[in-house]
């Protein structure tokens, strides 16, 4: 039995999830009214899913979840169109497609007939947020159940209509067919002239993955045509009648306070409204061409305070975090090392954007966020209006990566719209995005370990300062393991980032595993396997090393090979890397990623996620770091903050380990965590230099 028990839900400090005060669920009649006739099925949340909705956040909803809480709902219109409502949002991770596949599979309808309404607080059930790789393990089964119940209801309706033997009826491609008579009737015909709504239990039987015909197979992105023609409507593309353009006038540094402000010159400009409200300064213009001039016309004096800088960051974090309780470590070989990770920025290609519109005291905001219900709460609180007066909709979003949990841009647009008496769009500049969003936490990780000569690890002590506790426990079989997270008052605003602290913890752990392997004189893969009893962990290591041809060539002289293994958020990963070091510059030539996340829903979509996570991981591994001094970011431009480009692209080889016997886990995050440690280990192999700081720099 593996000693390592993966936790279902890891409370993570930096998964920002403020809870709303209330959650108003429309009753069933409202759903029918919204839908306009036909057939409506509502899924009651299972107690487990209800807990998941509530887990992890710093606070809880005041009202406990009741068995009547709705997880998802589905509507079959008289036209035959199927609409599914979920509070999850699409940000490029492709869940619009994969969730549609799950529904199509259970319902027996083609994916093209199914429309997903996502992330609209006015229409979709409450959802805590599209975070933590939980859409596939949590939302997909809910949608499958509501689709399965719809299928059974449609068969009931057909049996009743035909007075037929129900056991002879089955669904296929949007119709119910009677195998005895060959008669068919479409879903739309069955839904015609009825007003039926049902709440269904959560424990409905679902098709096993081995019988999937639509799910489990490749399906092109459903909105692909809109994307390639430029028709996909992102928040920043929106234009409402009479809409104006807004910009916030920012403080000169973090923690600065407003000493004085003069908005009169800006206010005198034609078509410009200047706003001062407490510390908030902004302008609204009838033409976006005036934004720069209007913002510059606002005169503001800020009082700043001295703050720490990026050069002293790690000693600052250690000093604030205190010395941990070390235990004696027994073994033939003992090792103590310290690893660091820098603050990095999500840098979504679409900077934060929001469009806000007031009608009386009712507020509607369109914004790219991972937590539309959380943003609704923020807005209600900021403007002192009840939550039911606020509607948040999430249009197409130019990605988020954990960086769009909060609603600051939404709040800014709403404040400016209130002042202007018109709808207002705010799109942050790149500089704002790289300064006023939040960062992936920086951290220091101290590790002490001991091992026997035969490679058995005898002691493992792992202390993480500030970066977080995601995947802090080692997945190896360690009889004596201490893993502690020490929160520190961060000098910069920090929050969730794809993979959370699991990237930092995997970097430190798998670098240290490599160092221990060398200390006992063992080959790194053999050393890991010696300490791994979890069969799924072993399986990905075996898959990666086999595909890579691990051990066939030895590194040195600038050529290096490195590997790692890990577990996070329900997925097992192992990576092998080949790279070349020339004049202290690192070029990753090839990376093999073996990944196992249970039953695969969309193999090509999953590969796309793993390739993308690999590319993004290269940035954190080799080049990305926020430099700051006295509350100012020094490199808040893409020309000074280097994210991966085509020239950084290695040959990426993905090995999917498909376990149809296991529930599907999410995959958006874990494959990013394998990059930095396998690259660091390969750099050591190539040069003999051990780099313990992310980003990895040889000079």
């Amino acid at each position, binding site marked *: 039995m593996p000693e390592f028990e993966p936790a279902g839900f890891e409370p993570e400090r930096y998964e920002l999830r403020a809870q709303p005060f209330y959650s108003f669920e429309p009753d069933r009649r409202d759903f029918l009214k919204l839908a306009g006739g036909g057939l409506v099925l509502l899924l009651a949340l299972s107690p487990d899913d209800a807990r998941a909705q509530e887990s992890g956040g710093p606070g809880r909803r005041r009202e406990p979840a009741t068995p009547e809480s709705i997880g998802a709902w589905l509507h079959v219109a008289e036209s035959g169109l199927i609409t599914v409502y979920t509070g999850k949002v699409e*940000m*490029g*991770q*492709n869940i619009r497609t994969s969730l549609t596949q799950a529904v199509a599979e259970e319902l027996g309808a083609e994916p093209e007939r199914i429309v997903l309404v996502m992330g609209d607080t006015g229409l979709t059930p409450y959802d805590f947020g599209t975070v933590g790789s939980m859409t596939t393990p949590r939302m997909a089964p809910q949608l499958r159940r509501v689709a399965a119940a719809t299928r059974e209801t449609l068969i009931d309706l057909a049996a009743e209509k035909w007075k037929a033997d129900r056991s002879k009826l089955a669904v296929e491609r949007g119709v119910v067919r009677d195998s005895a008579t060959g008669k068919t009737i479409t879903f739309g015909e069955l839904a015609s002239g009825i007003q039926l709504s049902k709440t269904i239990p959560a424990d409905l039987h679902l098709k096993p993955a081995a019988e999937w015909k639509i799910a489990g197979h490749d399906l*092109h*992105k459903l*909105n*692909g*045509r809109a*994307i*390639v*023609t*430029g*028709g*996909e*409507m*992102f928040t*920043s*593309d929106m*234009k409402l009648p009479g809409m104006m*353009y807004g910009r916030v006038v920012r403080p000169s540094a973090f923690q600065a306070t407003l000493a004085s402000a003069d908005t009169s010159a800006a206010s005198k400009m034609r078509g410009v409204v200047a706003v001062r409200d407490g510390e908030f300064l902004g302008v609204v213009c009838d*033409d*976006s*061409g005036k934004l720069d001039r209007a913002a510059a016309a606002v005169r503001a004096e800020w009082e700043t305070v001295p703050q720490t800088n990026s050069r002293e960051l790690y000693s600052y974090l250690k000093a604030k975090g205190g010395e941990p309780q070390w235990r004696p470590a027994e073994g033939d070989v003992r090792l103590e090392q310290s690893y660091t990770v820098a603050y990095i920025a999500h*840098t*979504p*290609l*679409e*900077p934060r954007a929001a469009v806000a519109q007031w009608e009386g005291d009712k507020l509607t905001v369109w914004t790219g966020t991972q937590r539309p219900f959380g943003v609704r709460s923020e807005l209600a609180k900021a403007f002192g209006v009840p939550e039911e007066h606020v509607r948040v909709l999430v249009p*197409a*979003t*130019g*990605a988020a*990566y954990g960086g769009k949990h909060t609603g600051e841009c939404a709040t800014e647009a709403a404040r400016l719209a209130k002042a202007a008496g018109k709808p207002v769009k705010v*799109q942050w*500049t*790149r500089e704002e995005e790289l300064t006023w969003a939040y960062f992936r936490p920086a951290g220091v990780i101290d590790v002490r370990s001991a091992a026997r000569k035969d490679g058995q690890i005898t002691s493992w002590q792992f202390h993480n300062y500030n970066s977080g506790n995601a995947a802090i426990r080692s997945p190896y079989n360690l009889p004596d393991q201490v893993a502690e997270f020490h929160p520190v008052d961060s000098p910069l605003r920090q929050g969730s980032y794809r993979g959370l602290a699991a990237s930092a913890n995997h970097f430190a752990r798998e670098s240290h595993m490599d160092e221990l392997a060398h200390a006992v004189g063992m080959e790194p893969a053999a050393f890991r396997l010696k300490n791994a009893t979890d069969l799924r962990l072993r399986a990905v290591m075996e898959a990666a090393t086999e595909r890579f041809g691990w051990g066939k060539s030895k590194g040195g002289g600038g050529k290096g090979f490195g590997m790692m293994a890990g577990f996070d958020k329900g997925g097992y990963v192992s990576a092998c890397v080949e790279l070349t070091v020339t004049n202290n510059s690192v070029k990753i030539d090839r990376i093999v990623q073996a990944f196992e996340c249970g039953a695969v829903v969309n193999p*090509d*979509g999953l590969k*796309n*996620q793993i*390739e*993308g*996570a*690999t*590319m*993004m991981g290269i940035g954190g591994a080799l080049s990305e770091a926020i430099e700051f001094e006295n509350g100012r970011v020094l490199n808040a*431009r*893409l*020309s000074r903050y280097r*994210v*991966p*480009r*085509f*020239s950084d*692209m290695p040959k*990426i080889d993905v090995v999917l380990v498909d376990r149809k016997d296991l529930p599907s886990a999410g995959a958006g995050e874990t494959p990013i965590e394998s990059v930095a440690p396998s690259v660091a280990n390969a750099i050591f192999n190539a040069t003999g230099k051990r780099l313990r700081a992310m980003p990895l720099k040889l000079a």
Partner: protein
Amino acid sequence: MELVVNGVRRSIASDPERPLLYVLRDELNLTGAKYGCGEGQCGACTVLLDGAPVRSCLTPVKAAQGKAVATIESLEQNGRLHPVQQAFIEEDAMQCGYCTPGMIMSSVALLKKNAHPTEAEIRSGLQGNICRCGTYPRIVEAVRRAALMGGRNA
């Protein structure tokens, strides 16, 4: 001032110094080209001037006068996608899709100059375009596929 955008003559009220990107997006409602950085680093704003790719966030609108401006909206003709667009769909060469219009315009320009680029030529031709979701391998495959399909002249 007048501009010829996607084959149509349009009159422009904006300041001649204003970057083309905002004229296209806010004045002409052609929102396919995106803002990503405002300093010509990411390529999300790429459009073609007389067939050559430019960063519209840094190009004053007056520089587009007398030239044919082509945006992503012009590629689909009579319901038929351009081969590069078709190839991006077939290779699923996108995730969030925000970089895709710029990526496609750069690819169209690349194929116009070089109908059968090598992988290295594709990489260097698109080096100025960032896909933050990291779909680079698929984009390379999509451009290769489009080259095989035979690029239509944009």
